């Protein structure tokens, strides 16, 4: 026997247990010291490999980064930071033809999430993986977890950034309603920072929430009155929402600030035309209204004739029956235009209060139908079409 307990001890079970306990405690102390030293060495080695991996990932050398981070993890297998970084490298290196790295990234992240489900960084990484996969449900869940999770620093800004990412993802996936509700939540949490307000305004605009977008642009203009992008954005959103007077004001300011912005100039021209052609504006005289109606009626005829020529429909030879031209509404429109032409003479009569609407209805029908047959119009026709759309929206 290599070793032997003193025979004295063997007479007492209590003594034996005491000796065993002492030996176990001694063993614990010795192994603890050993493990501590070994772990410290391993952690130092792991840190070096981790730094190499991070640098490689930053340079876009994902294969090298993954190798280094894997090696770092073999040195310190439970290090959450290493796992998170490896998962990020795996996710970023994943290509669309091979999802295996994305799966591995997810497994690392799920393991981390199981340990710290409240960790915002882990949830955000998982959300990005889910977004990479295109899963709206999972991505939304993890983004929300990230927003309401624990951030190590700059929590409010990080939460807003996470929400912005979610909105961008939802917009990309066509989930506009969800994106809009997130935007409303975002707008209440945004700080008075022009850049962030501007970003939110753009997102509102992408979600077709022009009222929301206009409010954000106006906030930017309040914070930075000379911000040309905000002026143009505000003008455009006002234009899209049918508020052409406001649009004209913002667009004019934007063109003044940035005369090279052709899109804004075109929108301004269009808004000017709308405001000049609209016979329903309250501040214009009856004579001006009648003039605008007559001009619109004449323009409609011109548009109809031009469109018929483009579509190869002979309006003069055609009978206005649907049997002759089952595929084209243009002859019927011409018939209606001709039928309304005598009404122009009665416009000045004070008793004919509905006549402007009746005549303009014909104009609007012609503009809408020709737009459908011959494509989007330009100039005054476009202005008339926009006025018709605004009237329809108001009627709803």
């Amino acid at each position, binding site marked *: *026997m*290599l*070793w*032997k*307990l003193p*025979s004295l001890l*063997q*007479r*007492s*079970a*209590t003594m*034996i*247990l005491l000796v*065993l306990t002492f*030996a*176990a405690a001694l*063993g*614990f102390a010795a*192994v*603890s010291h*050993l*493990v501590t030293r*070994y772990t410290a060495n*391993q952690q130092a*080695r792991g840190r070096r*490999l981790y730094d190499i991996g991070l640098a490689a990932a930053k340079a876009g050398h994902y294969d090298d980064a993954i*190798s280094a981070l*894997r*090696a*770092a993890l*073999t*040195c310190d*297998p*439970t290090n959450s930071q290493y796992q998170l970084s490896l998962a990020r490298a795996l996710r970023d290196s994943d290509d669309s033809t091979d*999802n*295996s*790295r994305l*799966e*591995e990234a*997810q*497994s*690392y992240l*799920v*393991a981390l999430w199981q340990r710290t489900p409240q960790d915002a960084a882990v949830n955000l990484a998982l959300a990005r993986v889910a977004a990479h996969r295109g899963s709206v449900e999972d991505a939304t869940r993890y983004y929300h977890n990230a927003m309401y999770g624990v951030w190590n620093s700059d929590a409010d800004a990080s939460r807003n950034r996470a929400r912005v990412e979610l909105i961008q993802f939802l917009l990309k996936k066509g989930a506009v309603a969800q994106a809009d509700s997130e935007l409303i939540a975002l707008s209440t949490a945004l700080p008075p920072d022009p850049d962030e307000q501007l970003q939110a305004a753009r997102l509102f605009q992408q979600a077709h929430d022009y009222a929301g977008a206009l409010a954000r642009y106006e906030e930017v203009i309040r914070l930075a009155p000379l911000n040309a992008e905000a002026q143009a954005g505000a003008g455009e959103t006002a234009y899209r929402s049918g508020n052409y007077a406001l649009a004209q004001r913002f667009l004019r300011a934007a063109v003044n600030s940035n005369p090279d912005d052709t899109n804004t100039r075109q929108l301004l021209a269009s808004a000017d035309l709308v405001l000049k052609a609209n016979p329903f504006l309250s501040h214009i005289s009856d004579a001006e209204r009648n003039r605008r109606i007559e001009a619109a009626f004449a323009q409609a005829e011109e548009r109809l004739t031009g469109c018929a020529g483009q579509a190869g429909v002979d309006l003069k030879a055609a009978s206005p029956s649907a049997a002759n031209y089952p595929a084209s509404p243009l002859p019927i429109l011409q018939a209606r235009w001709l039928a309304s032409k005598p009404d122009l003479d009665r416009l000045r009569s004070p008793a004919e209060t509905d006549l402007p609407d009746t005549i303009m209805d014909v104009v609007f029908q012609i503009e809408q139908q020709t737009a459908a047959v011959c494509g989007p119009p330009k100039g005054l026709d476009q202005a008339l079409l926009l006025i018709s759309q605004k009237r329809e929206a108001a009627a709803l």
Partner: protein
Amino acid sequence: MSNLAPVVVAANPEAAPAPRPAAPRRLFAGLEDVFHEEVFFLILCVFIGIFSGLAVVCFRLAIDWMHLALLGPLPQAHSWHLFAVPALAGLVVAALVLHVFPGIRGSGVNQTKSALYIFNGYIPFRTAVGKFICASIAIGSGQSLGPEDPSLQIGASIASALGRQLEISREKLRLMAPVGAAAGLAAAFNAPISAVLFVIEEVIGRWSAGILGSVVLSAVASVVVVRSFLGSEPLFRIPITTFKRPSELLAYAVLGIIGGLASVIFAKSVGYLRPRLKAWPRWTHYLQPAIAGLLVGLIGFLGLPQVMGAGYDSMDQAMHGQFTWKILALLAVFKIVATTISFVSGTPGGMFAPTLFVGAMLGGAVGDIERILFPHLTGSTGTYVLVGMGVLFAGFLRVPMTSVFMVLEVSGNYEIIVPVIVANTFSYVVSRSLQTIPIFDLLTRQDGLILPSLEEEREEVILHVEDAMLPAPVVILNAQDYVDANARRVQDSAEPAFLVRMHPSGWNLVTREQLQRMDREGKGELTLASVLPKQSLPSLYPDLPLDSALRYVNDYALVPVVNRANSHKLEGVVSRDSVFQKYGSGRVVDVPSVD
């Protein structure tokens, strides 16, 4: 204590003289008031678990340190280190095995079984030291072996040494080695349930409250120790596993069949090469581990460094779909080759981890191929990898219960229990039909030891009392009847002895001569109950093992076999002749008189 002979210890149990039986109950002669031996033994099991856990923590650190020092944190293919290091380490290991630790060659499982059945629980402590050093070098340098078997043996050696020191009873000392083995294995796998099941299924082979309690205590204690130092992280990052449609069980059954075939190839390769290499001249034994290391290293050098070492990192990657099915299949094949080479060369190390590795890669490959052929299959690669691990465990190590619990415990996911059971069953059946002798029994027989084959014992047909039961006798006497009436009833019967139904319960036996003598002695007017001994005849139930009849048939000419629901209802009788005939002994022993 001083009058006890000293314990005889030798480095090699095969060369050792028959170990001295431990002093029976000596330790507890004056301590019964303080600690009952059973209680003390259970406390001792906890300490065994603690010491084994501490040893296994050190062992794992040693392997990791060796691996980092010799091969670096992440060995890459085409590096000369890959074949030079294991080859040189093989030379060192061979020298140590041949000159310093000659008892460490072979399987730790078998050495623990030998300790239990042959050496009265004796395993030299030097074995633990040798396994620790040599397995650390071998596995750390990249030999395709696992740390679980050495951990098992380190635990068993510590337990055996402690038991001998404390001079506990021989019966308990025999159990010490399996208890330590369970602790070592549990610590190595971080899986106490599987370790307990493995030791009971493969080493001890029987269940009882005492055995289970001691093994569980040691296993749990060791796992607690390991987790307190190394954390409770599982061996693998568990992937998302899915099992949605029962029809997919067919796919898992195919995996089970292929796994069973792979197990047979693996086992036959080891079984064929090991005795041949062992029989080569002794000087070649210095070179065998080095050549094995060189060959394993070459496999790594040529592009498959994953086959080197235990391979847990690669299993982890396979679970997360990091390899194509072609790579997975190649890894499975070359891991079998590498492990066979490493193991048969006599390099110390175990086959648990390689078995899991082969199963994981095979499972992944088969799963991927099946999903290419049948795209509707929903099981992820990770699911097939996990199931594959259990398949090889069931087919190669032939521990069906452990294999199921192993997968469940490692994965922590009960969703895949049905696929695991189905695949493991197929694997086990295929392996058993093509490879009659399980790998551990094969290794034992190659070493010239005859240990009980627990698989054979499990499959053995057990004879029951009903198999030897004779029809109930025509004449059954009633204890409430008078002696003379009973004497008249048996007058014309040819039987020498008759069963007596006692009241309110029980049976007795009386011979014709006894009845006639009592009648002659004037006891004819007395009831039979009043003259027969009060002690009733033992009775048996039809479903009892026939062994239980052996206790009585020598003492009683007839033993009643009664119904369990109604002990007065006689199902039949057994006699010594009927029992012996069933056993086929053909011996005829004089029936002692009931007098």
